[in-house]
């Protein structure tokens, strides 16, 4: 998913002619994408917001592109992946769900100008790509650490057994 997020951002930035002066690559990340991910609940919250953000970006892009445009296809694909991850999280770590139709509290006022909407979408995708990259590295590190710990404990018990 980290790779998919990075590819989506790169395509969006180029397709929307925003690869100028690093407009999208801001350090002012949305609060909900800053991390760190402290647990499944936090990740679920981030992914819920991301799913909403992707829907908004797709809605804006539908006003700018013909049906079937590549950007719309990619946004829909990523949205599906985010929804899939959310479903998995729900399954593994059930949490009291929000009432149907209720959205998270709105963030800062959404831009109304087309360019600002494009830019906002681009910045979210950039932040999402960074977030996913960090998350991926974090999970990989944990996975490696877990395996190391497992090996160490296994070796320790073996030494204990020998002694």
């Amino acid at each position, binding site marked *: 998913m980290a790779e998919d997020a990075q590819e989506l951002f790169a395509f969006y930035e180029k397709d*929307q*002619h*925003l690869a*100028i*002066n690093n*407009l999208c690559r801001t350090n002012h990340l949305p609060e909900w994408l800053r991390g760190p991910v402290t647990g499944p609940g936090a990740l679920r919250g981030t992914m819920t917001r991301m799913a909403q953000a992707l829907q908004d970006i797709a809605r804006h892009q*539908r*006003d*700018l*592109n*013909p*049906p079937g*445009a590549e950007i719309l296809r990619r946004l829909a694909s990523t949205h599906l992946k985010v929804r899939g991850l959310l479903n998995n999280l729900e399954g593994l770590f059930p949490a009291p769900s929000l009432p149907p139709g209720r959205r998270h509290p709105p963030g800062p006022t959404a831009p109304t*100008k*087309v*360019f*600002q909407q*494009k*830019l906002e979408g681009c910045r979210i995708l950039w932040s999402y790509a960074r977030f996913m990259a960090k998350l991926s590295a974090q999970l990989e590190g944990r996975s490696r650490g877990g395996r190391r710990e497992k090996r160490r404990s296994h070796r320790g018990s073996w030494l204990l057994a020998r002694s």
Partner: protein
Amino acid sequence: MMNHLMLLAVLLLLRTCYTTYSQQESTVFPVTYLNITKDLALQRLLVEWDVGKPAHDAGLAMSFEIQVRRTDENTTVWTGFHNVTLGKSAKPLHWIWDSDLPLECMSHLVRIRSKAEVSKIWSQWSLWEAVLGMDTSNNSEPQIFPNEKIVEEGSDITLCCIGRKGRIIKEFFLVPAVHVFSHTNSQVGLLTVKNVSHQGVPHISVYCQESCNEEQCYAHSVFFVGKQPDTPNDFSCQTQDMRIVTCTWSKGGETYLYGHRLPKYTLFEEFSQKMVPCTVSCSEQCSCSWNIGQQRIYNITVTVENPLGKKTAMDVFDVTHRIYPAAPFQLWEECTDTEITLYWKHRNKGIELFCQTEVLQPNGKVELHNSSDTHLHYASITLGGLQPYTEYTVRVRCGAAKHFWRWSEWSEALTIRTKEATPSGKLDIWREITPVLGGRNVTLFWKQAPSFRANGKSVSYEVTWEKVEGGSKRESISFSPVHNSTRISIDNDSYRISIMAKNNVNYSLPSVMIIPRATGTEELKEEQVNGTDDGIFISWEPRHTYDSYIIEWCKVPMLQPCDLQWKRFGPNISSALINSAAFVPGVRYNFHVYGSVANRASLLEKKTGYLRELPPLLDPIVEKVELTLNAVTLSWDSYPTDESQPGFVRGYHVYVSPIQEDCLLKGSKKHVLPDDSVLCKYTIEDPEEKRYTVKHLLSNTKYKLAVKAYTGGGETPIVNFIYIDTPFNSNLMYLLVLLVIVPAVIAAICHWKMKWVKERCCPVIPSPSKSKVLSFKAFKSGSEKVLKLSDCIPDMLAVDTKAEAQKLHPWSQLPSTPTENKTDDGHNSSQICPDEKEERDFTPTPTAQTHTCFENFSYSSHLAVTFDSYQRPEMLEASTPEVSVVLYQPHYYFDIFNEDAASAPRETAGRKASLRYISQTDVHA
């Protein structure tokens, strides 16, 4: 008095001028009020002004000159005139000016002056009235105008970027980049795009940056390039059931505007002045349906609109004239062998329909049958004139019988097979008669003629035969559908044979053939025919006695049985192009032409030919080669010229390789091979002439020959040659023996007896240098020793007075007495000879220096043979030719000998004068 009058006139003139001026002054009505507002949505200036009330009261016709100026430009950007007749109501005047530059970009100023039509004097200009641009306000960040404008493709757009106060616009550009006219070295940046195009992107982004890098130094915007919607084409409305009307129209071209900027469609009904309550859906075509209620006549206007414009289309109609029936459904049929009655149902109850049935025949031909619907629940049509046991595919469509509007869709197709009937037409039959002991074997063939129709699922055959005369028992055999031939044995009497086809219903009419009584066969000459690209052309002599002609041939002539084929022709035909996919080039096909009358066929002509002749596959094998001194006879008797050849053998070519490059053999033609080598070619034009004699050859010479057969397809390249050597001519041998061998034998004998000859002619003379004679004290003169007589003490002196000796040694008479030396072995090998130099001068010189010369010929065998030193010069000269012929001695020896011989008579005197002793070895050197 006169002066007084002049003064009065001047005063009068001045008065007149003043009055005129005062009148004109009173007709100038300057602008008393001027107000300007801006409509930013439409980017236009709304100008409102007024003149004095007297002008309104007078209802004057007035002209106004209006000027527009921008703050950044010193000159007026626009000047226009506005003519109006003032009304009594004293309402202010209005005027609108559309700006090509966004009004936000900079301040715009307007002034006006006026002129009454009756006057020729313009009023003073009003003061400039301004509407301020955004450049005058305190912005917190740069701003771009217009923002998100939708521009029609092909038009121009001007954008501006207004920086903050005191800032200069550093960059102002579009992405994707397009050619622009820009001006950015001030607080306001301007950018104009002429003839803007879509460029395949949904929108164009605009970037602006002040001369700083903070976030607030940037401004961004977009604009869209699109098209107006197309006028809805093919707009029409119709109903299937008189309850719901559906209007349809074509979607039109791409507008490049999407989402909420897509074209929007609305339908409006003019008579009721109501919007049509329907929802438009567009895929390939747009449509909109609604329930019509009681209204029968409509005037519907469809409007398509997007931000760039709108288009309309209209349709006025009576619903009862716009019936588009639903497709008929649930088709079923009843049929006989030649008729189908087709039934169907339809959904348009209460509407009289007119229907059309399409019948697709097996040959692909389509027939249409019209019918009117009279039944309440279903409709039907009867289709006649059909073929038995044949599949037909039918389908139906309907339209309103009254006020036909258009056909419904076709119903689903139904395939129907008619019932079986008796086979129609006759079979085409033929036979092959083979005489056997005591009778004949007759092979009967049958096939379905073009006019024959089986009219059933499967057809079997029945063959019947009986004697024509004598009322013999009738015999018959039945055959299954897979058979198309049989063989029967009959005696030599005449027989009547009939063959019939039979299906599940009945028999066909019989095809009859009479096999005549066996008689002797007449041999017919076979005629060669030519093939073409389209087949083999056969023609025959027409005879009026026959009612048909039959040509028979074998499809595969090499096979046995050969798959006999036949084709029947009418009585007026005398030629045919026989074509078959089985015909192959290089195969000989034999055709027999029969004439038939009253079912009796008789052979008329025989033809044979190839579709295309090919060169012979095999070369003639030369079985016999007869050689003479100057000719060679080749024969290839066993070479076949029959049907085994891939073409008619037309003759042979005999090729002979010449010695010279050019072919000079008489009766031949030059033939150049692909490798440029040359052969002589003889042509034999009779294929049965299988023997040929090549004449005018040279004896004892090697030749290569080849024999090739050629057909109408030519001949194959020459690969193999026969090599021959013509015999040696023995007469030449005899001549050679006479001229060479005999002299050679004589020379050999001479050589064998050389010792004897030498002893006889040239006794050996020992070398004086080895003689003791020269072992004395002497002085040297040059290389020669000189014996002083004073040193020599002779033992004895004798005077030789022999006449013989004097005769044999003429030089001995010289004053200087030569010394005769005898070798130990008794051979007299010495001679007295002149010095070579001296020999050339034959003049006797009595005073010449005296020398003693010894020449030893024992070391020169050839000279020993050819030269007898004791011979006189005359004798030597005479003996010269004989020696040269017999011994084939090298010429230079001969010359030397000759020279010596020629000079011999003259040498005598010289020798007398200078006698020298020369070793034999010196002679050789």
